[in-house]
């Protein structure tokens, strides 16, 4: 909250491109959302990618296609179904209400959940590719040396696919920074809670406030560029 109120403070210099009363809170919400989503996905996607990379089971292709569906669906379609399942009568919304007593829609945890679902394929694909690149004999070597599958995952698979994992984290982070449609449908535009940078830019343009839109957009470009550079460097190295 302290940080939020600090960021709300208007920039008073009138010579600073007319950015007085500029609200940077949406940028802070975007960064917070990206970090939360990236952390959650890194923890949960790694075991999932490991299972999909090395296991064979009936229905694997169906599950994998379902996980990757957010990558190809229009954000409005995805947003619509997220609203349904996160609403008071939806399964996720119902569980959330029974645990916390509140609504999941139009809250930060709500947009975080939506961002996790939307970004899952962006985490899964590079991680799975990185795991599949590991020579299978390395895993077998670990097994005959007495390591369980779990130990092999942490002691062999993770250290040998660190580039893929970092690439996945960066892609998820960038995807969240630019997320718009689904977040707007699920979270609306509540300042300091669900109004992310992309929504703020959209609203600024709608209200003909091009200066604010330009400044906010300019803030996103260097962040995205630096992270993309990192992804390309990792890809080149691997």
């Amino acid at each position: 909250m302290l940080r939020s109120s600090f960021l709300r403070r208007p920039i008073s210099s009138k010579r600073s491109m007319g950015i007085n009363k500029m609200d940077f809170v949406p940028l802070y919400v975007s960064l917070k959302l990206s970090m939360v989503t990236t952390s959650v996905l890194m923890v949960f996607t790694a075991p999932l990618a490991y299972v999909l990379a090395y296991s064979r089971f009936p229905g694997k292709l169906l599950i994998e296609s379902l996980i990757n569906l957010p990558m190809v669906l229009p954000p409005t379609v995805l947003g619509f179904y997220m609203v349904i399942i996160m609403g008071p009568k939806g399964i996720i919304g119902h569980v959330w209400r029974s645990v916390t007593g509140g609504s999941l829609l139009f809250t930060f945890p709500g947009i975080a959940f939506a961002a996790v679902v939307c970004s899952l394929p962006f985490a899964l694909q590079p991680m799975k590719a990185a795991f599949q690149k590991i020579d299978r004999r390395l895993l077998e070597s670990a097994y005959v040396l007495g390591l369980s599958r779990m130990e092999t995952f942490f002691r062999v698979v993770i250290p040998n696919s660190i580039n893929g994992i970092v690439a996945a984290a960066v892609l998820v982070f960038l995807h969240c920074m630019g997320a718009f449609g689904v977040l707007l449908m699920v979270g609306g535009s509540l300042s300091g809670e669900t109004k992310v940078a992309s929504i703020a830019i959209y609203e600024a343009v709608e209200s003909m406030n091009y200066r604010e839109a330009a400044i906010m957009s300019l803030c996103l470009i260097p962040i995205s560029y630096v992270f993309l550079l990192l992804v390309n460097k990792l890809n080149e190295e691997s």
Partner: protein
Amino acid sequence: MVLQVIIKKRLKCFDIEISFSCPDEQLLVMIGPSGSGKTTILRMIAGLEKPEEGQIICHGKTWFDSSRRIDIPPQKRRIGYVFQDYTLFPHLSIYDNVAFAAPDRKEVDDLLDRFCIAHLRNRKPHLVSGGERQRCAICQALARRPQLLLLDEPFSSLDVLTRRKLRDELKVLKEELSFPVCYVTHDIHEALVLADGMIPIVNGRIEPDWMQHIVRGGQTALLTSRTVREPGLALAY
């Protein structure tokens, strides 16, 4: 016999159907042309592949028995396995590779000294030569204190001189080991230098005639002279 193997497995081109045993402190060579199922047999002994039928017993413990539905996972078989190509962990140093599954760190130092790679302890595997990598792989397998050592053409990717040197080192090492060793190769010279017993394998079955065919073909005079000189060099099937 310390190691008893009776296995059957259907492959795409032929069926593996083999039975053999190996006494303690003996080096058993499985020899045969490439693609004859030698590596698959070794992998089944290690538990990395499952036979369709049969029994694998080592030191009195049943590792696999299809009739009793016993299939001990590779993690619990206490084997040392040296693969055909280098399978050292690339993110670890030579020391950490050897110490990877070693119960006693002091033994790691002894092994590194014994195999003359102590000076490379802090290097990553890609920064050492092929021969040094295979020495490290053997150290890694021995550091686990195995009950059985499986070597799958461990020197096949090395140049002739290094291969000969490592082969001689293995011959010396063999005398120090107190457990059986199964060695897969298609190199008859290597087999003759190392073997206490030999099983010729062609298309998944023991094929005694294959050895005679090799000899008759004049591919190695060494085989005949050695067999005559050392009649104890019996085929182990």
